[in-house]
């Protein structure tokens, strides 16, 4: 492939183009845009990936198989990426776990369509084979422990099976000889993401014991059901847990009831609506990640609340004109005091002087 032959040359050129000391001769965003116009996969710094296949996993879940460009650094099973999409002029970032095993030339994201969800809806409705998506480098410490323990208990519900699936595929490729119990919980067989693949894997691989739980047929998953479905003896078991909040709370409670037989590693896919929107003026907790401070805010503008908590956010006009007080809201719901608009979008820019907390918040302050 010509692209491969040109690679060493390309790398040197890329280094030069990305070198900051060469500015203004190499205006990086301008060069990047030019490269992108020639080939959407080309970029000096961005990880971009072409959609090469779309697999319909269930009625509401699709796997996007991706071929990344050279900026992709590789990953560990269980890690996730932030996907950046632009919808009607606005860029959104959402986190998705990588569902394929590492090592191959392809990546996979398995996305469940959330009704009313902005990014998952867009991915399902708009993304076609050949489209190019922008990803962050992989991150996360929800990965297989090293060395591998002799017994693994994997518990997934809904789209929470995606990182577990990547781990399971890795274990299979490494010919893991221990014992795996894999619990997959969902509403009904039609909702089981990777259902048939899991069954085929369990049939061919004695190390894997698959436990499927369908709440519609078998009733809500609770502690007695867990007790019944999972092995009585959990000694030496390493737990790996991922799913919606309710499921994770349940498993945690049950695990501790069992005397916490081993480590229970977990990852939450928490969504923004999990913060209930509070009435105006109710007090909320604001976590500031940069200054590592926490303060309580009531109905006052966040700038005022932060100042009375002893923080000194940058500001100017205090009436919403100058944008000096701009801050990234990482999660939670705020009200714009000028327009009355209430917004829960994760990862958005707000003006502290005209925003009030309407739920617990996390700010990049």
């Amino acid at each position: 492939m010509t692209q491969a032959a040109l690679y060493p040359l390309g790398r040197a050129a890329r280094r030069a183009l990305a070198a900051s000391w060469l500015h203004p001769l190499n205006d990086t965003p301008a060069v990047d845009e030019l490269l992108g116009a020639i080939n959407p996969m080309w970029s000096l710094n961005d990880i971009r990936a072409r959609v090469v296949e779309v697999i319909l996993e269930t009625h509401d879940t699709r796997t996007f198989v991706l071929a990344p460009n050279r900026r992709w650094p590789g990953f560990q099973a269980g890690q996730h990426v932030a996907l950046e999409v632009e919808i009607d002029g606005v860029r959104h970032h959402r986190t998705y776990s990588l569902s394929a095993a590492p090592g191959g030339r392809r990546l996979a994201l398995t996305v469940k369509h959330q009704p009313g969800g902005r990014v998952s809806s867009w991915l399902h409705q708009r993304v076609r084979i050949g489209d190019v998506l922008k990803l962050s480098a992989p991150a996360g410490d929800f990965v297989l422990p090293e060395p591998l323990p002799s017994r693994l208990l994997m518990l997934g519900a809904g789209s929470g099976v995606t990182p577990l699936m990547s781990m399971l595929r890795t274990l299979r490729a490494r010919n893991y000889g221990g014992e795996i119990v894999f619990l997959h919980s969902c509403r009904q067989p039609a909702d089981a993401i990777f259902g048939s693949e899991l069954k085929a894997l369990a049939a061919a691989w004695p190390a894997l014991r698959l436990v499927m739980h369908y709440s519609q047929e078998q009733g809500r998953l609770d502690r007695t059901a867990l007790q019944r479905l999972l092995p009585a003896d959990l000694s030496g078991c390493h737990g790996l847990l991922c799913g919606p909040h309710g499921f994770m709370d349940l498993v945690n409670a049950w695990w501790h009831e069992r005397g916490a037989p081993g480590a229970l590693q977990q990852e939450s896919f928490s969504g923004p609506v999990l913060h209930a929107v509070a009435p105006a003026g109710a007090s909320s907790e604001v976590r500031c990640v940069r200054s590592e401070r926490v303060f309580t805010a009531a109905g006052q503008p966040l700038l005022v609340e932060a100042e009375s908590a002893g923080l000194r956010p940058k500001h100017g006009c205090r009436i919403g004109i100058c944008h000096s007080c701009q801050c990234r809201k990482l999660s939670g719901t705020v009200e714009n005091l000028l327009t009355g608009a209430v917004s829960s979008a994760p990862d958005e820019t707000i003006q502290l002087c005209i925003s009030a907390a309407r739920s617990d918040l996390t700010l990049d302050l």
Partner: protein
Amino acid sequence: MTPRKQLSREQVAAFQAEIDAVRNEVKADLGERDVAHIRRVIRIARGSAVAGRSLLMFGFGPASWLLGVTALANAKILENMEIGHNVMHGQYDWTNDPALASQTYEWDNVCDAEQWRHSHNFMHHSYTNIVGKDRDVGYGILRMSDKQPWNPYHLFQPVSNLLLALLFEWGVGLHDVEFERVFAGKVSREQFAERMRPFLRKARKQMVKDYLLFPALALWNWPRVLAGNVAANLIRNVWAYAIIFCGHFPEGAETFTEEETRDETRGDWYLRQITGSANLEGGPLFHIMSGHLSHQIEHHLFPDLPAHRYAEVAPRVRAICEKYGVRYNTGGFWKQYFSVMRSVFRHALPSRAPQPALA
């Protein structure tokens, strides 16, 4: 008399609600169209800069030099006015695109972007035309209002005005250093050094780029490139100066005392923005080349709405003004420009009417 005194409190509140409605409507409609517009202008500005610099560097003969200067001046004007000024106002912050983020954008002139955000976005846009608070009233150099006290050095202001036009980017760059407060001894030596540092850093960067690096790259052709870069910067300076002066200083644009603006509501603030600003009439190209500051009134009402929307909302703003009997100052470029010049000359001499002492 200012409209704040003409209108009843209820009328001001109703006026505020109508202007708010215009703003909220545009806010709710922001999307693809706005991003497409600004990215297109960015592409044109970049293309124009590359074309201009190449013509200056590799061309020969006066025609290609003139063309190169025009293209480079065009790039600088677009970058400073339609892109830089507007992006730094936060007009595109809602896009979450780091290339369009107000707080990190840096522009192609000697003014440090962070100092600009302070002196312009905050000071000028909050305290618009309040004599003694808005330092853009005459830029601390010119006397543009009867409310400013007269000083003998104002006699020279036709000349200082000309110098300001030619060196406009330097005036803007040094604006946040607040020299008049330095001379008045209100700023300590340390504070002064502190304020000079970002300016000097940025000015050095610009000087190296336009007057050292690019000429040097042209080898023996360096005088041509150097002269071209000087000319392009001059053209941008004069153009930016003319547009900005026409935005606030034609006769009829009001200035205010601090007393008059005490306890303002947002409605009062809107009224001050409208009566303190003046529009320029022209076609779409003229509006883009002015960074839409030709819609100074709409810009002052909605500084953080994408500027290419101003033309769309202007008829509604004007109608609302007519309804409440608020003066909407608009005119062609030359009419407004001559009006500004008359004001420069007139205020060089002391005012006849007794003027209020300045705090």
